[in-house]
């Protein structure tokens, strides 16, 4: 055994990944291991428990559990009247009405994100005739529910974990898709009582720097983003259900013919007889596939429709059609903003002029313009 080999085993670099579990046994010293075995394998668990089907314990019960309530039609009408009275006064909020301190944008600012629905895919063409697949994202009726300042957020369960050894940032709770209060529980509706909004079907938290804080009831629209900017989109991937090893992990399976007996889409061997003499944790096997949190980063915004609150994003987005996604300014360092975006968010102009309805990126071919000639 060479001295280099011994030295290598002594100075074992430990590669720690978030989901890694090191399977080195602590009894054997590296020196002894180097003598008898020429390796020290670190296996990471490819799959730890990644999803829970229940919400966190601090969430209130959301959906109305009562079914088949026999209420008379008079009482039903009364309930509707009460709801109308409670949520009657809703006027569109102008930028001047809200008391936002004029804060400066700097490159380290983290702005709020936006909740949108992925409504499908549309093909568009660039100015040189190249076809581009664009995902159409419909920015729902987003309203800021509350702002949690950094000191307070750092005390919460998730905040403490996130900002353990870092400077804490604030948290903006944004809601989207207002719907009938009757389908929610009283506790869930009370989350929106302070703001006086119709309860929203979907809530999300966005981590923001204090200078990008927004007061409650601020609407967020498609104008929050800038044409040509890069965004990150978070969504839950398509749920494929229980899938076999060929679709889930890309195994090749076995031959389709030539006398193969019952071995067409199976996994085959799951371990050797020698090392560890058992199945390693993380062994790829059939199981549930999909419905996982994913971020698609660096997607370019190529078109914004201000009238319908639509963003066209170049590329695809995790999740099926008609699923809810969250859009953030990108985290990729080389594609961040160089100029100030609408900070802290976009407000329509005070003098009542309507914004330009359809804004296109300069690289795209606008449909109403003449055909391309190369």
């Amino acid at each position, binding site marked *: 055994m060479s001295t280099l080999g011994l030295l290598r085993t002594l100075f074992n670099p430990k590669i720690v990944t978030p989901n890694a579990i090191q399977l080195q046994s602590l009894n054997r010293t590296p020196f002894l291991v180097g003598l008898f075995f020429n390796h020290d394998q670190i296996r990471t668990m490819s799959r730890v428990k990644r999803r829970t089907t229940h919400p966190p314990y601090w969430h209130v019960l959301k959906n109305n559990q009562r079914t088949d309530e026999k209420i008379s*039609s008079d009482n*039903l*009408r009364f309930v*509707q*009247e009460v*709801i*109308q009275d409670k*949520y009657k006064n809703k006027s569109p909020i102008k930028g001047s009405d809200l008391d936002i301190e004029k804060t400066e944008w700097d490159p380290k600012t983290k702005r709020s994100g936006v909740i949108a*629905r992925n*409504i*499908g895919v*549309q*093909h*568009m*063409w660039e100015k040189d*005739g190249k*076809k581009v697949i664009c995902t*159409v994202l*419909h920015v*729902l*009726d987003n309203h800021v529910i509350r702002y949690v300042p950094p000191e307070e957020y750092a005390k919460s369960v998730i905040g403490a974990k996130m900002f353990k050894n870092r400077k804490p940032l604030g948290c903006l709770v944004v809601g*989207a*898709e*207002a*719907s*009938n209060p009757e389908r929610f529980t009283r506790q869930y509706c009370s989350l929106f009582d302070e703001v006086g909004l*119709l309860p929203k*079907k979907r809530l999300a938290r966005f981590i923001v720097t204090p200078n990008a804080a927004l007061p409650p009831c601020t609407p967020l*629209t498609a104008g929050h983003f800038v044409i040509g900017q890069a965004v990150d989109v978070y969504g839950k991937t398509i749920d494929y259900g229980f899938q076999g090893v060929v679709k889930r992990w890309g195994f090749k399976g076995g031959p389709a013919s030539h006398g193969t007996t019952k071995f067409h889409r199976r996994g085959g061997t799951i371990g050797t007889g020698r090392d560890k003499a058992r199945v390693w944790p993380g062994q790829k096997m059939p199981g549930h596939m999909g419905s996982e949190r994913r971020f698609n980063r660096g997607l370019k915004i190529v078109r914004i*429709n*201000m*009238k*319908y*609150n*639509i963003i066209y994003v170049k590329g695809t987005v995790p999740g*099926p*059609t*008609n699923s809810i996604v969250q859009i953030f300014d990108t985290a990729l360092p080389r594609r961040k903003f160089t100029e100030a975006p609408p900070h802290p968010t976009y407000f329509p102009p005070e003098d009542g002029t*309507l914004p330009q309805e359809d804004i296109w990126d300069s690289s795209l*071919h*606008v*449909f*109403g*313009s*003449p*055909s*391309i*000639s*190369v």
Partner: protein
Amino acid sequence: MLRRAVLQTFRQGLAQSFFKRYAVSLTETTVTHQPIETSDEAGEKSVPTQKTGDESGNTVVVAPPEFRFIYPEFLPDPAMERRNRLREKLERMDMLQRRSVIEIPEFYTGSIMAVTVADANSPNKFARFVGICIQRGGSGLRAWFILRNVVDKQGVEILYEMYCPLIQKIEVLRLERRLDESLLYLRDALPEYSTFPMDMEPERRLNNSVVPINPLKVKLRPRPWLERWERQNLQGVEDLNLPQRFYDRAEKVAKPWEKYDLMLHYRKTIPAEEQEKIFAEVHSQLQQQELKRKLRRRRGSDNEY
């Protein structure tokens, strides 16, 4: 053909319950007089809410029934998982914008067409191809058609995307239909059935109201073929003259019950009420575009004299 017959049976009220469900889901009726404006309805409306003529309720625009054959790509893909009314509406607006720039004429499978495309590699920077349309498909901006021709004894097929901005001109040289919806069997037919001269002149029709059906029966080359044509119930092909075992096997594999499967056809088509809504939306703009083109043609012919 089958689609029209099936739609008529729907109209006769065979499956009215399905359409009632559709109609109810689009207009959410609540118990109150003023329904709460939830975001499901708000999504369809624009940010400064504008009332269109249809919503005021007095006049109902109905497009002519031929629209579903002249403009089939305006109907969305029937697969329910990927449908979204707002996105389809935006796509239709983009399609109308493109149609305002270039004329995409009425054509069917079996029509002979010429397409001029911008091509960087050609000497004139434009490439013109003449061929017979053997298949058309896709919906929305993805609509496509395939043209086939035989050039220097080599069969050539080109797939064109109808709304691609590289296309400069689409002309229909001969507007007619064939006995089948898909003419893929021309690949296995004798080459003279797919050969058309590249400098073919557009033919003028005497009777503009009816699109003629060409009852041509095509002769196929001897086997082997690309597909099992005897299993596809083709009308436009001459007798295949195959041994009886082919037809016996075709009978075993056939699914004769599919023509009675109402749910299958329902899932493959857009309901008649929704078709009417869609075409009513685009009807006025399409008519305006047609009128403008007619005026331009008339002015052009006047300028000649």
